């Protein structure tokens, strides 16, 4: 086979795949949006809040309100990320029988330029060290009798997050926004 044939054939295949992709993209999009919706639910549920509060409770005494960070914060942050990732994966698998984290992360990567909305900001906040430290300092301040009210889900929303209501309407918002 000539080189040019190979190329044209490849182009054909590419083209074909793209068509297939477009034709079933609605279905994929729906599943993707559904997953995002579940993540939003999971994060707002009491179970998740409890998980987080327990974690904060366990480690907050290690944190000090100083600019410099201790090395142990890094270890605690790693544990925290693992905890949340594990929780999300378990919960998603429970709610969507055919859920695959691998597939989901691939879809995320495909949409990476279009991932806007507070839910992504929030997911990013989990892995953001500075936000993580602030969360602990807020918790500690509250524990030690300073003014912040801890009663409902403060720990998630502490970093520039709006209240839960906004969060629920996000998915729709991000599509109809413009």
């Amino acid at each position, binding site marked *: 086979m000539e080189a040019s044939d190979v190329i044209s054939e490849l182009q054909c295949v590419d083209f074909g795949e793209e068509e297939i992709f477009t034709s079933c993209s609605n279905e994929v999009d729906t599943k993707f949006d559904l997953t995002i919706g579940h993540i939003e639910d999971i994060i707002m549920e009491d179970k998740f809040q409890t998980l987080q509060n327990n974690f904060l409770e366990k480690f907050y005494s290690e944190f000090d309100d100083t*600019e*410099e*960070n*201790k*090395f142990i*914060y*890094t*270890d605690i942050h790693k544990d925290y*990320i*693992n905890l*949340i*990732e594990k929780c*999300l*994966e378990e919960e998603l698998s429970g709610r969507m029988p055919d859920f695959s*984290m691998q597939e*989901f*992360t691939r879809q*995320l*990567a495909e949409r*990476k330029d279009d*991932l806007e909305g507070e839910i*992504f900001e929030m*997911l*990013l906040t*989990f*892995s*953001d*060290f*500075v936000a993580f430290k602030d969360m602990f300092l807020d918790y500690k301040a509250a524990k030690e009798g300073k003014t912040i009210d801890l009663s409902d889900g403060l720990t998630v929303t502490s970093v520039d997050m709006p209240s839960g209501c906004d969060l629920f309407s996000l998915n729709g918002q991000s599509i109809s926004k413009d």
Partner: protein
Amino acid sequence: MGLLTILKKMKQKEKEVRLLMLGLDNAGKTTILKKFNGEDINTISPTLGFNIKTLEHRGFKLNVWDVGGQRSLRSYWRNYFECTDGLIWVVDSADRMRLQDCKQELHSLLLEERLAGSTLLVFANKQDLPGSLSSEDIRKTLDLDNIKSHHWRILPCSAVTGENLLDGVDWIIDDIASRIFTMD
């Protein structure tokens, strides 16, 4: 790799740069960091852990990590290698007695797999001290010319006067951008 880490890496590609600042103790790393941020540099204590600053520069978001350089802390450095786009190696140009130590630490760092592909900027700091070595001397003593694994550059600078700090950051951003953000 977990979901959150993947998301983070994806986002990092968007004009966000992670710089890791290392070097022997007393090199002036924290002073450089605070100088970048326009903070008072007269009250800085030796670093026991690490500092982070997020700076906006030329439309880039720079996350600068400064980890303590005491000998007993150097084993912690590896916890901060992940996702590093640029390594800033800071040298006390007046500390002639420890340049061999400095050279060894730098060269062993460059063997780290997780730092492969990062850009290296060497700051020959403390040029405000009359007894400091020139960047040319430091370049020779640290054997920089033998570094083939990383893009590198050495600049004389002073964290006290601010001399060349921005030039260094501009260079490292340009180098990183030319590698990573070519799609923009």
